């Protein structure tokens, strides 16, 4: 069974440990602005919602890439940006309907969640289990798939 990142916003306290851990793991510095997971602050409601790539099956980022820089890691299901191949054209950043591939102007490349090769730093850093790395059929995943289906270019006849 493949695992996926599962997010339970009810448990998030907005501590941003995930963003710190992600930026340290990916870029070697504590800089939330470089994090591939983002905690959104709904201050009127006192709620925090962590959000990152769901590694969707449709993988618009992967299909839209003109130079084959985004590939599938078969062991984790993650769609991974190969920084050496990425030319920085940013087509994937507009193709991803979740908004989870972002351009980093420091490197001139795009960045997205790669599941840290199957040991995601954000989940390890989360002190409240708001972010967990569990079997993919756990709650939340279906909702992502529904959104993905709505954005698909084609639809099966009769759908």
């Amino acid at each position, binding site marked *: 069974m493949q695992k996926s990142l599962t997010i339970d916003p009810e448990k998030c306290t907005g501590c941003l440990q995930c963003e710190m851990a992600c930026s340290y793991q990916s870029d070697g510095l504590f800089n939330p602005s470089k994090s591939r997971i983002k905690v959104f602050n709904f201050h009127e409601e006192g709620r925090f919602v962590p959000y990152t790539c769901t590694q969707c099956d449709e993988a618009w980022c992967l299909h839209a890439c003109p130079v*084959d820089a985004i590939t599938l890691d078969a062991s984790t299901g993650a769609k991974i940006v190969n920084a050496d191949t990425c030319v920085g054209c940013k087509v994937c950043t507009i193709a991803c309907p979740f908004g989870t591939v972002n351009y980093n102007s420091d490197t001139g490349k795009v960045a997205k969640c790669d599941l840290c090769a199957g040991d995601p730093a954000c989940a390890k850093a989360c002190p409240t289990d708001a972010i967990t790395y569990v079997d993919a059929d756990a709650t939340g995943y279906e909702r992502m798939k529904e959104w993905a289906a709505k954005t698909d270019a084609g639809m099966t006849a009769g759908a």
Partner: protein
Amino acid sequence: MHHVIIGAGPAGVVAAENLRKLDPTAKISIYGAEREVPYSRMAIPYFLIENVPEQGTHLRKNDRHYDLMNIEVHQQRVDKIDAAAKALSLEDGSTVNYDKLLIATGSHPVRPPIPGMELENVHSCWTLEDGRAIAEKAKPGNTVVLMGAGFIGCIILESLAIRGVDLTVVEAENRMVPRMMNEISGNLIKRWCEEKGVNVRTSTRVDGIEEGGDKALKLSFNDGSTMEADVVICATGVRPNIAFLEGSGINTDEGILVNPYLETSQADIFAAGDVCQGLDFSTGSYMVQAIQPTAADHGMLAANNMVDGREQRHRGCVNMNVLDTMGLISASFGLWEGSGGDRSALEDYDNYRYLELQFEDDVLVGANSLGLTQHVGVLRGLIQSRTRLGKWKEKLMQDPTRVMEAYLACAQAQA
């Protein structure tokens, strides 16, 4: 079963790969007119600034990719389609039969009908071969005039500036990227370029080019002024490659006309990518979208429909673009000019930050952004899912930058 694809660009290659996945035993052949390994025009600007070697522009990086997938790639132009005989005539005089055919011949640059466009130092920037020629001629200190500040013109601007040339851009419309960005953002891009030392002349046309003077070329403009240049690069737009279809019985307008299954007016012939006048998500009408994501979507869908027993209806592609003009990043989505509904804008001219959202009722239908690089894709997601924003519409009217929160609240129901 023999699937034949005309065109070795993204639409053709994506289609071939998807065909292989869906039809493991079929014969699959790609015919490309250029004497190149299938490559991406999108990557040429990055080749020009020497960010990537030539191989970095290739659509697939493994030299044996096509062999491993059992896809034949031929470097031969197709001159004619005989739909009745289900046969193609190739440039070497030979004939190829197909069972299903995909036309993905892309587009070609057009040049304005003015004198001098045939001169040696007047170039298009479209093919890898053009890229090599420009890399050779655009030397530090040379004066270069770029005709056209559209998407292609803007994307090669930076590569020219980095090469240290003295650069002038001439655009007939009143702003830069007029078919992608509105007047405010198109003029902010102009100001940005001027601050970076590029001479930008909007609402100006080149009337003619002649040889002579101290430099190789002398240009005259519609306001009567003239200037000399070493090289002129013409980027005044592209048109679908449909000329070879004359007499084929395949109906064309601006591009190849297709039904919602990407089938042409001839049986067993499909079209995809720049050459295809496909369904536009936002308007419901059929139009040419010469953009990479549409090429990939068309390629996937056409391949699916070429396989017997599989039928997928096209829902339409959202017209969208992202552009980096000397470090200033702009994006456009859907009905960015609006369609009569409310608009919401963040206008921070000093910092080159701009975001305009266009609504129909409480649904996002279009957007233009400048200086934003985080979560921009969600604009596409909100448009294409036709998500009702409810109370979040009002919040976005106050602060359009909260699109990601609006998406989480409305589409994911997580807040």
